[in-house]
């Protein structure tokens, strides 16, 4: 995922290439790398791999158990069928919302990243600061702020009513539009940064060469700029799609009952209803779906720089 973060130097050195020759005197001590890895990897194994395994186990617990009586391991694969029957609407809706969010993010982020990387000139760094500026306030506060902007008496609704796009009872909150708008806003920087990183490496002389070969601006964009920025598009897509699928903050604050996403379902199943088996099954389904989609996507988009 090295391509995701624009490094300060921007040297563009291949990050994953192992050193050509390890410094002399280090080759002898083979245990050194393992000693360096051990603490961090153990942390990840204990608090990422083991819990996911535990979650998988919990998804097969007896669905009739409860927190008070405890859960028995009954290998209830039927939990998955139950979970699908109950919540496939929210599940598919989340994937759909995340897809729209990602597409809109690409469409908005591309011109922004291009403007910074190619046309930014001396304003480049300042504009980059602007891209990460939303992170300086809290995620929840930003989303609440959108709630205020899109509120029924807020300026956006008033304006849309005035130009008769919305009827007199029309509203934006609790609609799909509000949820997706919130998701797009919150994940846009994650699309801009990797796109910027790959556009920044773009050699302007290639565009001049394309012009010399009588390519118009559209053709040289489609045949030179776009293909060369694909690693950025791929990385940004992952950074946008994955968190958007599991998000429940936007759906909860900006949406209504008809825009509930799978994250809200999992959250309330776990923390409110305490229905661990079904909630775990939903989580496992979500993770598996995303891993499959990501694997397919990365192998078709065909860039190695992502991982």
């Amino acid at each position, binding site marked *: 995922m090295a391509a995701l973060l624009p490094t300060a130097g921007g040297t563009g050195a291949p990050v994953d290439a192992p050193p050509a020759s390890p410094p002399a005197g280090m080759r002898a001590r083979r245990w050194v790398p393992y000693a360096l890895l051990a603490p961090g990897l153990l942390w990840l194994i204990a608090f990422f791999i083991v819990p996911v395994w535990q979650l998988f186990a919990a998804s097969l617990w007896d669905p009739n158990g409860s927190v008070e009586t405890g859960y028995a391991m009954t290998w209830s694969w039927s939990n998955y069928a139950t979970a699908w029957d109950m919540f496939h609407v929210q599940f598919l809706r989340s994937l759909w919302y995340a897809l729209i969010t990602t597409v809109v993010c690409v469409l908005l982020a591309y011109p922004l990243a*291009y403007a910074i990387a190619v046309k930014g000139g001396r304003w480049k760094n300042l504009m980059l600061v602007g891209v990460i500026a939303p992170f300086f306030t809290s995620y929840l*506060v930003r989303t609440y702020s959108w709630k205020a902007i899109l509120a029924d008496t807020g300026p956006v609704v008033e304006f849309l009513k005035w130009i008769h796009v919305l009827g007199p009872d029309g509203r934006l909150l609790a609609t799909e539009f509000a949820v997706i708008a919130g998701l797009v*806003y919150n994940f846009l920087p994650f699309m801009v940064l990797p796109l910027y990183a790959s556009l920044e490496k773009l050699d302007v002389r290639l565009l001049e060469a394309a012009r010399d070969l009588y390519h118009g601006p559209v053709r040289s964009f489609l045949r030179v700029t776009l293909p060369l920025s694909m690693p950025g598009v791929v990385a940004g897509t992952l950074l946008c799609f994955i968190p958007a699928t599991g998000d429940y903050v936007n759906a909860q604050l900006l949406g209504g009952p008809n825009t509930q996403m799978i994250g809200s379902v999992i959250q309330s199943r776990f923390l409110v209803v305490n229905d661990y088996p079904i909630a775990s099954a939903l989580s496992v389904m979500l993770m598996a779906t995303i891993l499959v989609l990501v694997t397919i996507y990365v192998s078709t988009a065909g860039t190695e720089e992502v991982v």
Partner: protein
Amino acid sequence: MRSLWRWFAEKWVFLLGLMLLGYLFVPIAVVLLLSFNQPGSRNTTYVLDFNDLHFTMDNWTNMCGAAGLCDSLQRSIIIGFCATVLSTILGTLISFALVRYRFIGRGATNTLIFLPMATPEIVMGTSLLTLFIGAKLPLGFLTILIAHVMFCISFVVVTVKARLAGLDPRLQEAAMDLYATPWQAFRLVILPLVMPGIMAAALLAFSLSFDDFIITNFVTGTSGYDTFPMFIWGSNLRGIPPQVNAVASAMFLISFAFVIAGQLRTRRRSARRAATS
């Protein structure tokens, strides 16, 4: 007219970029505006009604006036600090191993680093909660810290790795040719050069930890160890105190000032370098 058209043809991408940047600032501007607003009787903190704004400085002068707000900020800072220190150390060690050594299991390590970044937060939250319940570990400070360190490590590794990989391995050899011990070469040559990467990773880790809500919501439980995002979420029902906007605005202004100051410093330094050479 013609020259105006040409100017526009030349600049339209840049102007579009500026408009998009403006869009990113819209909610921040609203938070700043609302931080000076006294919510009226029929007005809650998060309604933007230009006909119903009442200027006040109370939210700024009396930030801790909202019960629990400053306690939650303090918790967020403590958790953020501990998680940053731990994850930066663990992640930096991993990136040194990955970049400077060849060993069996490199691919598996890379996958293990990548997986947490490819997993939706909600899955990590649910799985950690299952683990903690199974292990009968009481939810609270410790479980939040464990979770935050876990999801920060990968981002630290990626950031430090990018910096390390740009380093010339011959620098260390040169140092050792000049009779530096491996430890001296590391401490006096490599570490200072990697430091910007480590600092960037630490900043990233702190902001990830400070702002995390989805995972924290699962591993806090009813312990009452509510971080700042948890405080906001929790006061949703009672109504969010307007001071939250002042705190968020202050956070924004302080970080923004720091980053801009850093930018100006590098710009001045590079200008000086250009002048001397």
